[in-house]
């Protein structure tokens, strides 16, 4: 990868929810970069903080109960967490397109597809009305919707799941964003439709040069599309690596466990090696390694200190006190 300036730099992001049952420590000190045109995969099980991380960047979490406690999100020399809301609105759906699962930010059921795409164009770009319509048709064609012109008049419920997801992508891409954030965009879809959408996004990204952040719990999906991968667990990033490195030699015990526990389509597996136990409760701030109770390599330090995300090689980071490669505790303070 070329050494260019990242399009997005996130530093030490911490988000909590103050709920009736207590404070949920949803995201704890998350830092990562996104390079121009890069495809970044974000994997992790449900509740690991993937969505809250990305929604926090755009300040789309409900506040209250949510609160962004600390952090920085640098985009184009501005901190998205500090700039005033008017400026942020310009960026949301403009320079940063997004597809969240959250119905609040999804398609509006009572407005036509055409209206929703043109609305996005109206807010973010100064185009005369007739050109807006042309652009909307162009966008629907771009995402592979047949008879695009007629489709402008369709309501979301008149479309299949796959077609709706294509429309969401068209809306997100309407203003030629620098970054597209897609939160589990294929999770609800059947596998043959998922394959269509993945093919589409791969193709679009090549043609448009948009950086993509793709959130999923499916390690298979990420393997086929990402350049780099971030693995989240318990509201933290536990590992980060280039996609080939991550799958060839995972360094964090959680990643190792996850890859060992999934069966493969292309191999007749033996017994699945499952990770014992369950994901951590988020009702307290992490004071030790959140994976320690489930980790086969855990030793004393793991139960006492929360490991930071350590640089462990070129383009590789892992939050773990144990040095898997050399089979000894990591030599850090």
């Amino acid at each position: 990868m070329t050494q260019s300036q990242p399009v997005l730099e996130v530093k030490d992001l911490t988000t909590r929810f103050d709920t009736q049952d207590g404070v949920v420590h949803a995201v704890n000190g998350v830092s990562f970069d996104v390079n121009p045109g890069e495809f970044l995969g974000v994997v992790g099980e449900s509740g690991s903080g993937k969505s809250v991380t990305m929604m926090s960047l755009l300040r789309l979490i409900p506040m209250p109960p949510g609160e962004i406690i600390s952090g920085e999100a640098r985009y184009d020399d501005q901190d998205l967490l500090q700039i005033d809301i008017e400026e942020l609105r310009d960026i949301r759906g403009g320079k940063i397109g997004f597809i969240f699962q959250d119905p609040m930010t999804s398609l509006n059921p009572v407005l036509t597809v055409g209206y929703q795409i043109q609305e996005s164009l109206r807010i973010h770009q100064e185009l005369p009305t007739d050109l807006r319509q042309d652009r909307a048709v162009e966008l629907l064609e771009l995402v592979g919707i047949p008879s695009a012109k007629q489709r402008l008049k369709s309501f979301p419920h008149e479309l299949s799941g796959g077609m709706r997801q294509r429309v969401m992508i068209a809306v997100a891409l309407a203003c030629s964003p620098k970054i597209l954030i897609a939160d589990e965009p294929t999770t609800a879809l059947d596998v043959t439709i998922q394959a269509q959408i993945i093919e589409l996004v791969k193709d679009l990204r090549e043609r448009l040069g948009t950086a993509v952040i793709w959130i999923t719990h499916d390690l298979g999906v990420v393997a086929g599309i990402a350049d780099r991968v971030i693995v989240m667990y318990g509201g933290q990033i536990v590992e980060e690596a280039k996609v080939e490195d991550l799958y060839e030699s995972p360094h964090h015990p959680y990643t190792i466990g996850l890859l060992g526990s999934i069966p493969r389509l292309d191999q007749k597996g033996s017994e699945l090696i499952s990770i014992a136990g369950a994901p951590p409760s988020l009702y307290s701030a992490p004071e030790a390694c959140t994976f320690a109770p489930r980790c086969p390599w855990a030793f004393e330090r793991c139960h006492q200190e929360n490991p930071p995300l350590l640089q462990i090689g070129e383009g590789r980071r892992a939050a773990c006190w144990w040095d898997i490669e050399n089979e000894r505790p990591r030599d850090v303070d």
Partner: protein
Amino acid sequence: MLTDSTKSGANSTPAAADPLVQVTGLKKHFPILGGLFRRQVGAVKAVDGVSFHIERGETLGLVGESGSGKSTIGRVMLQLDHATEGSVLFEGTELTDTRGEALRQIRPKMQMVFQDPHASLNPRMTVASIVGEPLREHRAGSREERKTRIDELLDLVGLEPGHANRYPHEFSGGQRQRIGIARAIALSPDFIVCDEPIAALDVSIQSQIVNLLEKLQDTLGLTYLFISHDLSMVRHIADRVAVMYLGRIMELSDVDELYTDPKHPYTKALLSAVPVPDPKIEAVRQRVILEGDIPSPANPPPGCPFNTRCPVAQERCELEVPAWRELSHGHWVACHFAE
């Protein structure tokens, strides 16, 4: 001259010497009511003529995209829904015309594990009463014996005796699924329909539950129908696999043969669409990307149900339902051109 091969399709039956379950020409159509008088104006052909058997002690995987009729097959097999047509033989007994007390006698032998462990467990009942419910219902043993049996069941599924007096909400998704499994095996069934038993669980928990199901199969000699849309997991757990599309089985064979040498164009496309967690393989994989969406089962296309999306369809496919043919021993397929 083209002939209608539907009939032969529904009747040719892959039979085993002594199957535990034999399903033949099974149909389930749900009426669509409409108009002023709520008359039947159509039918959702959820299951539209399927035949297969399940051998004792094996796991038959049933895969296919959502709405293809997998759950309906499971429900009709267990008589939770009436068949519209066709036969379900369980240990030689015809279930589709068994009713009342006779059916009640057979029920303990056939159980179901559901997808959603939240929805299928009564939140106001303790774990002990949930697991013990089938025992009480079928008056199995004395109070004391039932209590012992409940402890034994909890142990079998990897729960602690101390869990007995707790409520479902105190458990994680994976543990709730264990409770559901304990209830399903309470009456020592022969046959369990597992309907997407891991779909609602986290990745790291899925393998725990699958390992448990495999262990129980070994120790208790269970036979499974394992319904899932997760083709990778089905490869892992199943002995044979049936692939459904729009209410019909498109292909059925031994698991390894199905995954390494699929014969039906739909199976080929389905398998090629599943991502593999290996970037090197993904980088060079050739995909068959199917166009369009699955048609509605209320209005399936004539001829081969797959013809609207099939990459190799010919004119014949729109006119003639492909016969259900045995290509090689135990490898069945419904496609005019499969060879």
